[in-house]
């Protein structure tokens, strides 16, 4: 029995269906540990993104997607509270860096506040911008160009700006869907190091195609296959001695 205080999110019997005849996420139950990095692995199309997007209720933006089960964040079912509140507490970083193209770097960091209609004092705004950019290691690089558009940054810098944008709202949990798959190796390493530091502030779930990445940065790993959670446990355990033969053959490069 795991101590509830060390768990940020309990996923209970989660199912997601795009069409009535097929579950893209099928009866998944697991715990997401607090202040750790949890990696979700599995071959393409196994339902990683679908699972992740259920956690901040993105499926509600489209018609006809069925979500059932329970997602208890600090003990409260997030499927039963206001979706906008959930999304403020559960941040998301996407596969392709997507800073808002018409906003300056500073406005991108503050976008969560302006999109929620929250007005801030100037000093407050400055401190949030500085703090958020510092925590993604971008402050020194952009502090003289805060009023320039975010889209002029390099891909890796843009992705760190997107992480800062999510962090600015002080979420409990951040969801990342293959955040480095569009980046070069150096930018990828920068972001991996950053995530390892960030986990002291926020719990992180990261979907990754890259087994090496999961091994390097995550403490817990989940392996999915055809919509099911095949195996979940400590990353060390899973990489050294996977319990399921499907996990074993994925990790040895035979599927996916």
């Amino acid at each position, binding site marked *: 029995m795991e101590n509830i205080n060390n768990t940020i999110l309990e996923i209970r019997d989660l199912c997601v269906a795009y069409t009535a005849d097929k579950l893209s996420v099928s009866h998944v139950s697991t715990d997401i540990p607090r202040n750790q990095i949890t990696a979700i692995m599995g071959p393409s199309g196994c339902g990683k993104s679908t699972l992740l997007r259920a956690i*901040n209720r*993105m499926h509600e*933006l489209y*018609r006809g997607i069925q979500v059932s089960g329970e997602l208890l964040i600090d003990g409260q079912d997030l499927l039963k509270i206001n979706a*906008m*509140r*959930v*999304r*403020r507490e559960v*941040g*998301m970083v*996407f596969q*392709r860096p*997507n800073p*808002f*193209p*018409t*906003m300056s770097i500073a406005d991108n960091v503050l*976008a*969560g506040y*302006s*999109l*929620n*209609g929250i007005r801030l004092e100037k000093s407050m705004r400055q401190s949030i911008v500085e703090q958020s950019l510092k925590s993604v290691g971008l402050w020194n690089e952009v502090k003289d160009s805060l009023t320039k558009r975010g*889209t002029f940054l390099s891909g890796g810098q843009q992705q760190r700006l*997107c992480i800062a*944008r*999510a962090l600015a*709202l002080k979420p409990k949990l951040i969801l990342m869907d293959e955040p480095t798959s569009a980046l070069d190796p150096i930018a990828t390493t920068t972001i991996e190091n950053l995530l390892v530091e960030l986990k002291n502030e926020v719990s992180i779930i990261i979907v990754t195609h890259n087994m090496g990445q999961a091994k390097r940065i995550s403490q817990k790993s989940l392996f999915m296959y055809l919509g099911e959670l095949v195996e979940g446990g400590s990353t060390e355990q899973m990489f050294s001695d996977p319990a399921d033969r499907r996990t074993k053959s994925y990790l040895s490069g035979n599927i996916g």
Partner: protein
Amino acid sequence: MDKLKFRIFKSHLLHYSVVVLAALMAVPLVAILGKVAVEGFRNLTLEFLFQPAPTTYEAVMASAAGHAIPGGISNGLVGTLLMLLMSSAISIPVGILSGVFLAEHRSTVFAKVSSYMTDILQGTPSIILGVIVYAWIVIPMKGYSAIAGSIALCIMMLPLIVRSTEEAVKMLSSSYKEAALALGGSYFRTVWKVLLPSAFGQIFTGVLLAVSRIVGETAPLMFTALGCAIVQWDVTQPMSSVPLLIWQFFNNPTLQPLLWSASLVLLVFVLLLNVSSKIVTNKWKI
């Protein structure tokens, strides 16, 4: 080797044909601009922009005395600007909102039907819109008016703005919208602070092109605004416009010398709108 030479020759042939055809395409445009500019400059003075159109009597007296024909097109300019303002005030906000709606609900039956209707409206001959507005507005209001003219122009602008907004919003990557909503943003603020600003350049271009399309419309105004010999600011009264004046000058042998200058003013206005839309498109690239 010969085969290679032949292919190089073919490639050159194609290249030069394209250049020649492109040059030929420009001929009519240059010819039109040249004719209007040369003829139009003759009577174009500053006074031409600030004086109302002369009456036949004034024109006959002036030419009998050997003077240039007095007067200008200020009544038409004021009318054109007022009616553009009124029709834009309605068609721009309504058109943009409808365009966003159609782009956002593109898969619903309602949106598909509305979208199809927009196409039909866009293809409706403007003279028919003039007749309709005559029946629906002019007759009940018991008179021609700038309001009726603006309504006719508004109906013509709407589908153009709806369509360009719809295309602009559809082209935006859905990832911006998802990113905004994933930050807890409300749908309204997501549209207002992310979607519309990101599509602004293209929407604005669409508006400018819509204005340039209707500024030269004559037929619908003949049934609605009718025309007016003096500078008219009262929008409940008949009003003139530049294209209406061009039609009147053409039909009146004594006023024909003014025809070209009025055409030149209208043409320059439309060209300016087109050039601005190009500039906006390039400046607001995201």
